[in-house]
């Protein structure tokens, strides 16, 4: 068996979700090749070559792949997919956007958001926002899957010495063009790979009050997240949203501040190792999943918590 993993990167660095996806590939078993498709991304390929367990790095380094548009990258993957029994990508917005095109062009089904590998053809994935867990068998000739990072520990980013093979296919996206992007700039860790997350809900009352959480997060080296209610209220941008339709996280410590604990939010964070809830409503459902609950006014205790760390 041989497995193709599609690397998540920003043309500069290899993103952590790639390492979790490689762990899923390791559990399936077989030779693992890692595809880096981008522009001016030699550095990413060099990082990829050092990752433990990678057999070959396939590098498609051309301006046509700069924004990793689904139309071109999917055709590039199809071009090389014939050699593989499994094609995996992280279940990030990039992977989710591109990989179903690969599956369709290969005329196979796709398994989305796989959280556990039972064997080379049997996998586990959540359905109904994690309220049910499905175990599925795929008899497709090529198994195409997105991997949820929180289901797998990352492989080591070093210790490997894979050969870098340069691919010369140049496939343009003629009918899709990149116009622009607005990315949040932050020195804090990424939400999906942070070991501590401080998350705020509607109880924060305003976007300005999120500064309380920013400050606590900086003290803890944590990422900042939010519930859908806080995002819909306009307190914070949508990319901070944790939950069914936002990001799924599983940090060592999740501190939920002023979050009631709607089922859609719990779906995104209940795999966290330790959950702390701070809420003045002692009936809030978040307390039913929290390891440590503190019934108090967040505006009193969050600054106090920051001071006592």
């Amino acid at each position, binding site marked *: 068996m041989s497995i193709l993993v599609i690397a998540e990167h920003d043309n500069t660095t290899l993103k952590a979700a790639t390492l979790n996806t490689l762990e899923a590939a390791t559990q399936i078993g077989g030779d693992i090749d890692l595809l880096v498709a981008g522009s001016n991304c030699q550095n990413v390929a060099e990082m990829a070559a050092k990752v433990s367990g990678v057999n070959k790095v396939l590098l498609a380094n051309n301006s046509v792949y700069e924004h990793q548009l689904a139309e071109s990258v999917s055709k590039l993957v199809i071009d090389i997919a014939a050699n593989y029994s499994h094609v995996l990508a992280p279940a990030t917005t990039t992977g989710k956007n591109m990989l*179903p095109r690969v599956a*369709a062009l290969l005329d196979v089904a796709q398994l989305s958001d796989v959280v556990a590998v039972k064997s080379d053809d049997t996998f586990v994935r959540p359905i109904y926002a994690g309220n*049910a867990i499905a175990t599925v068998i795929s008899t497709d000739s090529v198994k195409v899957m997105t991997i949820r990072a929180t289901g797998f520990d990352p492989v080591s980013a070093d210790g490997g010495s894979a050969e870098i093979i340069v691919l010369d296919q140049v496939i343009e996206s003629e009918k*899709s063009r990149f116009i622009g992007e607005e990315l949040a700039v932050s020195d804090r860790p990424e939400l999906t790979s942070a070991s501590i997350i401080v998350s705020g809900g509607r109880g924060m009352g305003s976007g300005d009050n999120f500064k309380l959480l920013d400050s606590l997060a900086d003290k803890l080296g944590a990422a900042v997240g939010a519930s859908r209610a806080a995002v819909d209220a306009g307190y914070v941008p949508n990319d901070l949203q944790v939950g069914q339709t936002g990001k799924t996280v599983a940090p060592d410590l999740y501190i939920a501040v002023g979050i009631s604990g709607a089922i859609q939010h719990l779906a995104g964070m209940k795999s966290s190792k330790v959950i702390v809830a701070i809420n003045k409503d002692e009936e809030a459902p978040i307390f039913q999943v929290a390891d440590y*609950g503190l019934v108090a006014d967040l505006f009193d205790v969050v600054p106090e918590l920051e001071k006592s760390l």
Partner: protein
Amino acid sequence: MKILVTAKRVVDYNVKVRVQADNKGVELANVKMSINPFCEIAVEEAVRLKEQGIASDIVVLSIGSKTCQETLRTALALGADRAIQVETDDGIDSLIVAKCIVAIAKEEEPDLIIMGKQAIDSDNNQTGQMVAALLDIPQATFASKITIEKGEAHVIREIDGGLQTLGVTLPAVVTTDLRLNEPRFIKLPNIMKAKKKPLEVKTAEELGVSVVSNINIVSVTPPEERQGGVKVASVAELVEKLKNEAKVIA
């Protein structure tokens, strides 16, 4: 401009789903069913494009058993002009659904296909991308804003880390994210009008689509229940527990 919009019938988002005792699926008997929220947003967006004079004809499509005609009537009441049901079993996988949509798209030749980014039952987030790939047309997934300009859709997409804007040449597939719009409340006269709008039924067989799936569900189980823990009385006690009991902070 003609828009094809898709609508899936799913368990209502307010229902707490329960796994069947035999672990073969989730309990669907006597459970409230509704239009998938992302599909509802897709229909709303199509209707708004019509109200702006950009779209002229909205065809809504649902794939599934006869009961999905209810979902089609909801979409017609929201403002779609006519409906097509492709009769299949419920719960078929995304690739087969995509092939049915592609077959209808080839007959209808829409300028724009708007779909929900995912259904809240299977949570696949695949079908729109598959439709685009099989038609060999561009896609813009997870849309939070759509504007049509000179044969191109400009779409703001919700991506990890922020927002991205793409320009896709029509025809194209756009899939909706939550913040694209807020669907309108359906008024009673529109429900009555929807009953009179045309609804055509086809079968997957007529479309030449095979419904054989290579994915078999072995079991469906409830998630591990998380036990609630303890309440602490003060910040000092919380910090002490996190340091010494949970050992998650130094």
